[in-house]
């Protein structure tokens, strides 16, 4: 298996905010081109890669959905050379002051988020957290230059470079969900040397962080028989210790709850056991918070599985994962897919 770190680092350095996935899609396209038979882009920007199965036509279809979009910010106003911003996706404003960012204007501008002194803000703010609408971005240029290069609606992305920590841990922004794209890539690589009967549709989906837009639309086009959604899940960490949080580096989270077809859950659990891949039951009593929420209810319904890579500090610029878990997800998916026989769908039912 190839080392996934170079691809991952390349992906982490590329912008690709929700709704603006162009740059990241380009990188994934290059990575998937040699691994797939056909590549296409959906009308709203999701990347579809088809790797054909060896079974007879018509073949069953398995969809792998890993969203590629990133959270970030958008310029709402340009004031005296400073930028005011609003979020794209869920960002905790308390982690923003002092963050390095890139403003994607007529050219990419490096800058940082600044917290104005309290006496310049409404009195009610006091020494409490400062809302995003009060924060500014400073790109270090004179006001007239800023007005030339930036317009309302331009994007602002995190600029934190990836950091390799000890024990095969990687930190950086947008590991949610580029690590899942990396795992999907590993799966496609492994399938180069393994026979599989079903068609595999790998989808790097758009707009998960804002509307699940890619997940609602791509399956409508592809009409898969089953779907595997790969996303990050919550790892145990400071302040995150309850049942929702899985041990960091402790193996693949397999989602369990209303969004997930129980037969697919069991099948993944068994596959992992055979491969001796550590897994953890990731309980999702209501909604999964992933693309599965949308995929499951497309057209007349699609059975879904949800795989999770445990991740610390979600939606900050220093999200952290264990590369071991990334590789485990890739390997688990490949084995699962190779085990799908032409008649497997008959065993994926509700009356077991």
């Amino acid at each position, binding site marked *: 298996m190839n080392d996934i770190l170079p691809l991952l680092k390349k992906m982490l350095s590329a912008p690709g905010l929700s709704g603006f996935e162009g740059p990241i899609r380009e990188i994934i396209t290059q990575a998937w081109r040699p691994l797939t038979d056909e590549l296409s882009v959906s009308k709203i920007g999701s990347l579809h890669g088809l790797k054909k199965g060896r079974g007879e036509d018509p073949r069953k279809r398995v969809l792998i959905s890993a969203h590629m979009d990133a959270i970030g910010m958008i310029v709402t106003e340009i004031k005296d050379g400073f930028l005011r911003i*609003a979020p794209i996706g869920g960002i905790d404003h308390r982690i923003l002051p002092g963050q390095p960012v890139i403003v994607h204007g007529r050219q990419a501008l490096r800058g940082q988020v600044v917290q104005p002194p309290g006496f310049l803000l409404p009195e009610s703010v006091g020494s409490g957290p400062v809302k995003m609408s009060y924060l500014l971005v400073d790109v270090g240029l004179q006001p007239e230059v800023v007005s030339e290069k930036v317009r309302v609606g331009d994007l602002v992305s995190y600029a934190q470079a990836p950091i390799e920590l000890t024990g095969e841990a990687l930190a950086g922004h947008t590991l949610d969900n580029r690590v899942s794209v990396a795992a999907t890539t590993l799966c496609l690589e492994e399938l180069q040397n393994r026979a599989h009967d079903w068609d595999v549709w790998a989808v790097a989906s758009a707009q998960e962080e804002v509307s699940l837009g890619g997940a609602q639309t791509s399956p409508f086009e592809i009409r898969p028989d089953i779907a595997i959604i790969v996303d990050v899940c919550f790892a145990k960490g400071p302040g995150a210790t309850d049942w929702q949080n899985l041990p960091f580096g402790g193996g693949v989270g397999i989602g369990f709850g209303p969004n997930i077809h129980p037969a697919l859950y069991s099948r993944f659990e068994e596959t992992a056991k055979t491969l001796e891949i550590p897994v953890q039951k990731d309980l999702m009593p209501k909604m999964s918070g992933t693309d599965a929420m949308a995929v499951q209810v497309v057209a007349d319904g699609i059975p879904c599985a949800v795989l999770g890579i445990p991740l610390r500090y979600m939606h900050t610029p220093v999200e952290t994962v264990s590369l071991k878990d990334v590789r485990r997800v890739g390997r688990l998916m490949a084995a699962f897919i190779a085990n799908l026989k032409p008649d497997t769908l008959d065993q994926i039912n509700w009356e077991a």
Partner: protein
Amino acid sequence: MKSLIQKLVETPGPSGFEYQIRDVVRESIGDAADEIRVDALGNLIARKGEKAENGMRVMVSAHIDEIGLMVTHVDENGFCRFTNVGGVNPLTCVGGRVLFMDGARGVIGMGGVERGKMPKLTDLFIDVGATNRADCPVGVGDVCGFERPFMDLGKRMVAKSMDDRIAAAIAIEALKQLESTPHEVFFVFSTQEEVGIRGATTAAYGVDPDVGFAVDVTLSGDTPKATPKMVTALGNGPAIKVRDSSFIADPRLVDWMVKQAESAEIPYQMEVLTAGGTDGHAIQMTRGGVPAGCISIVCRYIHSPSEMVDTDDVENSVALLVKLLSEPIELG
């Protein structure tokens, strides 16, 4: 165009009860469309043009519903309690007048609110002039719109339902002015936007467009202490939407719209809205996904009985829409 606007804004049509306003729209379109149909949710869909080789199926969506009220209880003295249809602000209700679909009228009163406190909808009631339950002309489930005449202030216009009848007026006008188009254009006058973008959801599925534009109002930032802070202002031209809280406009389409506005020398402004949704969401999310954008008309005092727009913005919006529909669409 002002007489069309007046007719549109003064016709009642709360979400789910758009039959009167739909008839007004149908009549205003006259024979300017090639075909008109109405779907299960009451969307009026007017088709114009044939798809040329470089053309597309284009959906333009302007919603014809407006916010309103629905009676939930008539008490023994004939007072009507009510619930909201769409986003109704209790503050702008008090002292207001309402018009029921069958012509009954009433005023909104308030009780039990301490001085200086904000009223809730449950503190309010409609008085239709009845003396008891038996002679009350309205019952549970009856719906009314706010009643307020159109006001022409010259450069600015004011009405209760500029949101979104001004867009309906713009779409009708554009439909009429559109002389040659490479596209098969579907002008959708959509229903139930104010209660969750419902009409456009089914209309978009039925039209199955290649690309779509919503036309709707957006907040202005040009009044004293406006919240949220916005750069949009009356008179600066149609706003090209980058995002709202329901969808992110297709960036390829946004760039193309900007280019078209510039080449036709139509003034425009960029819009980033952090609250509120539009039919663009429904278009983008239908079937396998559709590139969607939105032309916004900057509007003051949205969801009050006195929504204000700028006449030049309206005319420029018509010009921009006609321009967009006359050109082949390039998504880069």
